């Protein structure tokens, strides 16, 4: 399938973002997205299904998201597809967490 992930040879994507002494994860949320994805794809979904999910991300979003934002989108897609977690549940929980934090 052709899609935004098929990047080989594409022009206009700029300079290589080289970062010295880069940490493995740049934030707690990146580490958690990685770990939740790893935990699910090593237990419930084959890793190829996770990759396929990342390829379902709409092109404009794919190209404007960071690596772990794409992982997050793929994870949410898979969780919804397997009827484990809906976007509505996630957003309801976010609203709850916001209240608790206030």
């Amino acid at each position: 399938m052709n899609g935004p992930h098929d990047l080989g040879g594409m022009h206009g994507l700029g300079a290589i973002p080289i970062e010295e002494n880069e940490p493995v994860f740049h934030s707690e949320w990146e580490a958690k997205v990685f770990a939740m994805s790893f935990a699910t794809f090593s237990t419930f979904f084959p890793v190829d299904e996770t990759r396929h999910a990342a390829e379902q991300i709409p092109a404009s979003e794919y190209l404007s998201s960071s690596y772990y934002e794409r992982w997050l989108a793929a994870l949410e897609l898979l969780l919804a597809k397997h009827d484990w977690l809906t976007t509505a549940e996630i957003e309801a929980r976010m609203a709850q967490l916001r209240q608790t934090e206030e």
Partner: protein
Amino acid sequence: MTTHHHRSESEIALRVKAIESLLIEKGIVDPAALDTIIEHYEHQVGPHVGAQIVAKAWVDPDFKHRLLADGTAAIAELGLTGFSSEHMIVVENTATVHNLIVCTLCSCYPWAILGLPPTWYKSLAYRSRAVIEPRSVLAEFGLVLPDTVEVRVWDSNADLRYLVLPERPDGTAELSEEALAALVTRNAMIGTAKVQLPSPPTPIAA
């Protein structure tokens, strides 16, 4: 999935926290397992694993021969096979051939051997450009190769991943395998750098 093009970091962090708490409540993920996974990739695996393979190949010609003939089997001999590195091809840099690894479709990378990939390897710029203008990409890393050196670019995929066996630098004949391993960097094993000798220490007056 909703479409949000520019969520703030704090918005994303909250979203991830919400998903985590829900998955834990539903028993889909175990919080201790999440910590173990993060610890493994932050502290256990990393380029030091690949560096051991490279140093071994530099000091042991028979191992080097086996590594280049069948990377998967030779890495298994050392007990270093792991998730995302099950099938490996090792390519050798020489005075006339320089190899560079990319994954244009995703960011496939030998996790068990090099750890998780750096941001630049996962960037859209590297994924798109490495296959079409590898010499300019290498120049951005400060590596300018003469035209007489052939550049070979290898595009990884889900099932097959690559490791560059860099050239052993001159002046290292006396170094132990362990000291050699300490010279080998991540970028040298992807092909965006060469292995360098550390600057000579300043002589200390006796």
